[in-house]
């Protein structure tokens, strides 16, 4: 039940971000879907006790793969889907705690939280980029028709 609530709420939140970023109207539900998948995976992993950096990396990786698939499908740049999709993963809470620690003159804790926020944002960015590159390689291989069956299908397709 908890997973369902999290998935629905992250869908709504990400779709709303699609509105704020002015995504094309017909792309907004797909933005929400991308964000919902990313957050659900992140949430499931963190419930399992996997630390937030790794969970963010995997979440962002999946977001980028789904975004790339949608981008191919609907002939829009990938950025439309991935930008709102990663928003739930952004370490807003930790960044806030960093600021709060620094204001309260607890610098040791502030640096610690700051490093956490930095690592998570790095993990998100790396997840996005890795997924994009891997997808590009895969798609290139597929479009060239590396295997015989694929090139056969390509030949059969009417131009």
């Amino acid at each position, binding site marked *: 039940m908890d997973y369902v609530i*999290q998935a629905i709420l992250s869908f*709504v939140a990400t779709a709303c*971000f699609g*509105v704020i970023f002015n995504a094309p109207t017909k792309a907004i539900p797909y933005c929400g879907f991308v964000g919902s998948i990313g957050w659900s995976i992140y949430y499931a992993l963190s419930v399992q006790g996997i630390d937030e950096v790794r969970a963010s990396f995997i979440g962002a990786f999946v977001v980028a793969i789904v975004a790339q698939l949608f981008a191919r499908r609907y002939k829009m*740049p990938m950025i439309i889907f991935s*930008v*709102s999709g990663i928003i739930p993963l952004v370490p807003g809470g930790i960044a806030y705690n960093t600021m709060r620690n620094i204001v309260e003159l607890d610098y040791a804790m502030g640096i610690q939280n700051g490093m956490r926020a930095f690592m998570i944002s790095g993990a998100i960015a790396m997840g996005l980029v890795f997924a994009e590159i891997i997808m590009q390689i895969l798609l290139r291989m597929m479009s060239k028709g590396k295997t015989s069956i694929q090139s056969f299908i390509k030949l059969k397709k009417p131009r």
Partner: protein
Amino acid sequence: MIDQQQNEMAIDCFLLAGRIMMESGAETYRVEDTMLRMARSQNMSDAQSYVTPTGIIFSLGGTHPTRITSISTRITDLHRIVLVNNVSRKLTSQMITLEQAYDELKKIQKTNYFLPIALQVLAASIASSCFLILFKGMWSDMPAAFIAGGVGLYVVTMVHGFTRVKFFSEFLAALVVGTIAYFAVQFGYGTEIDKIIIGSVMPLVPGLLITNAVRDLMAGHFIAGIAKGAEAFLTAFAIGSGIALVLAF
């Protein structure tokens, strides 16, 4: 002579496409790629482009003209990116001519594709209250986050319209969000001030900038990456100091 006019128009067209994309928040490498693809489709294979977040230099190579355009405002407007992308797609597949592409781009530049501000504020409100729950907040705090998030986005849009200084508008918005959360807790409409603030500042977080900065760095556009990273850091700092000011009291 006609050839030269054609070149002039082509260069204007490509620069306009690049400019709209850059102003709407596209990745730098994508802008370069789009401009070069458009140029190659018009048999201008020597074209070179150099894109930074603050300006674009585009040359057709040889003795042909080179132009510069400067970019002063950068917002997030995904709709325009899609539209320019479509124009470039059509031009490269020879579905439209250069003149038609230029006309379409001019139309895109003039039109305002943003949804009404009321709808955006509503979206920010809903997103804030959803994030409150996602970040393990309490259901009873939702109204406070709803109001704070909406007002935050409204303030950042309005103040940015007046002052054109991004840092200031974001600082002010964060300050307002913090104040609303503080009073909500004081008057008993909320319980956890931390969670309310975290949820409500999410619409202000520079998500696009962070992603683009790293994406550009990895694509080898170091200047663009560093510049966007600096912009993202400044935004985060503005939000942080706005909140910090409230917390300090």
